[in-house]
């Protein structure tokens, strides 16, 4: 009996630790400003007033569009480039292990070290306060990360299938486009979703390199923290709107990532 209950108790405790903040967030988002702060918590009258207000009283919709633009832009540019880099690494061992480490080393630095030079560069190139600049900045994160992730998907199994295609009469480019990419598609899709989420959640670059017209959601969320204090109910409503797309994408990512990592087509 205890042997059965104990694992459940532990799991329930952990689930609660993870889920409670989210549920709390939902509660706060649905209550009015005064009830939101009450301890012990009260439910008060549930309403979607906060959600209406963030879209009407604040440029929240604008933040949302900016985030979508930047995340999709960065992903669309990073994915084919990262695929090509990863392919070169996996198949031709371009630059050897040292080049791979160089690529990875950019990820080892704290992002703040990259932000200052980027700021100076963007200032000269007049890319500050522009979505294009922000997309470029996000590429410094997603490109090396995706390249590393994708190397694993262009493994020996795909190499064998590529050889079959080469003998079948395909050129290297035809092989890459018609065999490698489709076979590795689940992995590439998963990497794409991951890139989208990375960019979507990115705060530091967006805070420093964007301006009022180009703020993304994370920066927008921080603006609810004003000198008059945190408007917790509006912030909660905004946060829920911000994490919703990620919630929708996560199951897909999990599925493709598993599928991608277990391409069971070869004996």
């Amino acid at each position, binding site marked *: 009996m205890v042997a059965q209950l104990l694992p459940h108790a532990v799991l329930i405790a952990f689930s609660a630790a993870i889920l409670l903040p989210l549920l709390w967030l939902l509660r706060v988002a649905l209550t009015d400003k005064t009830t939101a702060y009450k301890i012990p918590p009260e439910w008060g009258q549930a309403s979607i007033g906060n959600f209406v207000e963030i879209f009407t009283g604040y440029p929240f919709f604008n933040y949302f569009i900016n985030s979508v633009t930047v995340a999709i832009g960065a992903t669309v540019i990073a994915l084919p480039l990262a695929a090509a880099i990863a392919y070169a690494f996996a198949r031709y061992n371009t630059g050897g292990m040292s080049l791979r480490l160089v690529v990875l080393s950019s990820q080892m630095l704290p992002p703040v070290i990259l932000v200052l030079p980027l700021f100076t560069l963007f200032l000269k190139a007049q890319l500050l306060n522009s979505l294009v600049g922000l997309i470029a900045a996000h590429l410094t994160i997603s490109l090396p990360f995706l390249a590393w992730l994708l190397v694993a998907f262009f493994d020996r199994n795909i190499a*064998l*299938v590529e*050889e*079959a*295609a*080469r*003998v*079948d*009469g*395909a*050129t290297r480019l*035809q092989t890459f486009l*018609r*065999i490698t990419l*489709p*076979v590795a*598609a689940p992995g590439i899709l998963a990497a794409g979703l991951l890139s989208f989420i990375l960019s979507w959640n990115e705060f530091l670059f967006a805070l420093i390199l964007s301006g009022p017209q180009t703020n993304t959601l994370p920066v927008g969320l921080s603006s609810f923290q004003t000198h008059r204090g945190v408007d917790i109910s509006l912030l909660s409503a905004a946060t829920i709107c911000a994490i919703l797309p990620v919630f929708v994408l996560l199951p897909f990512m999990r599925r493709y990532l598993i599928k991608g990592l277990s*391409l*069971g*087509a*070869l*004996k």
Partner: protein
Amino acid sequence: MAEIGLRNLTKVYGQDVTAVDSIDLDVRDGEFMVLLGPSGCGKSTTLRMIAGLEAVTSGEIMIDGDVVNDVDPAERDLAVVFQNYALYPHMSVAGNLSFGLKLRKLPRDEIDRRIAATADMLGIGDLLKRRPRQLSGGQQQRVALGRALVRDPAAFLFDEPLSNLDAKLRAAMRTELIKLHRMLGKTIVHVTHDQVEAMTMGERICIMRDGRIVQVGPPLEVYRNPADTFVAGFLASPPMNLLDARLGGETGLDEVELPPVGLPLLARHKEALQGRAGGAITLGIRPEDLDVEPSAAQHAAMTVTVVAVEALGPEVILVGALPGGQEVSARLESDFAAPAGSEVQLHVDLERLHFFDTDTGRAVTAS
């Protein structure tokens, strides 16, 4: 139609790992050539170099007299069947078959006609819409074969295509490949480590070891006259008995001594062993050349202590120990039985003795 010629072909990996060491081989037009050897002997590397999947370190590969070292694999007009089949996992069986034809921009109806003919020949007509992962190993194997056949290439390269199949299916596919070769008359280079495959399928077999060719010839010829102890030991199961012996007798060349017995030497053996009187020699006896009855015209007897009797059904393998401790295997009639530890007299067919240099392992033959 294609002749394949290898000239001083060498493959070195990295600085000093020589996978293929300066080999010469001519595969005739329409020939079924088997490359046979243990794993790591360089046979697959050789095949991959012929296919163009592996760069040549030095030497030449010729197809119909043209050097193709730098020709792209796509341009060599060869088809490969891989050990793991390497089917395109994202395409249907029909897509797998048509991929090479579409790249060659064949007309749609010609592609359809060829797929239908190939599928019909291999009995995979009802699988055309399936994906590779929905097929059994044997079916995948057929599709891989079909993908090679449908292109009608100049020659086929088989890289251990049967090794992933179960024993029964493998035997069936062996027969099928032999039939296919007879029907198409195309050049085939078939790589395997399975000596049964080599013996049954090859018109000639090329035995490789440590990146070098040890012997090339028709299966029975190689079986009857192995070039060295490696081939003698590799080419049958159970392999040839290789016994440490000494030449002796009055002249030092009258008999081959396996104490306490001395097997008399025939005139042609004496001729071949000229100059080795009294020296050490490795004596080779095939298990089937030993019998409990004196069946051969010229024979000698030796007594062994039974170590084990393996009944295989149609035959019995007797493992016995000579007085000196060396073990011999004998292939006997299925009704043979003897308890372990008992003594059995075995008759040796003297015509069928093989002699190998004890140091080099090379066969000693009359030059």
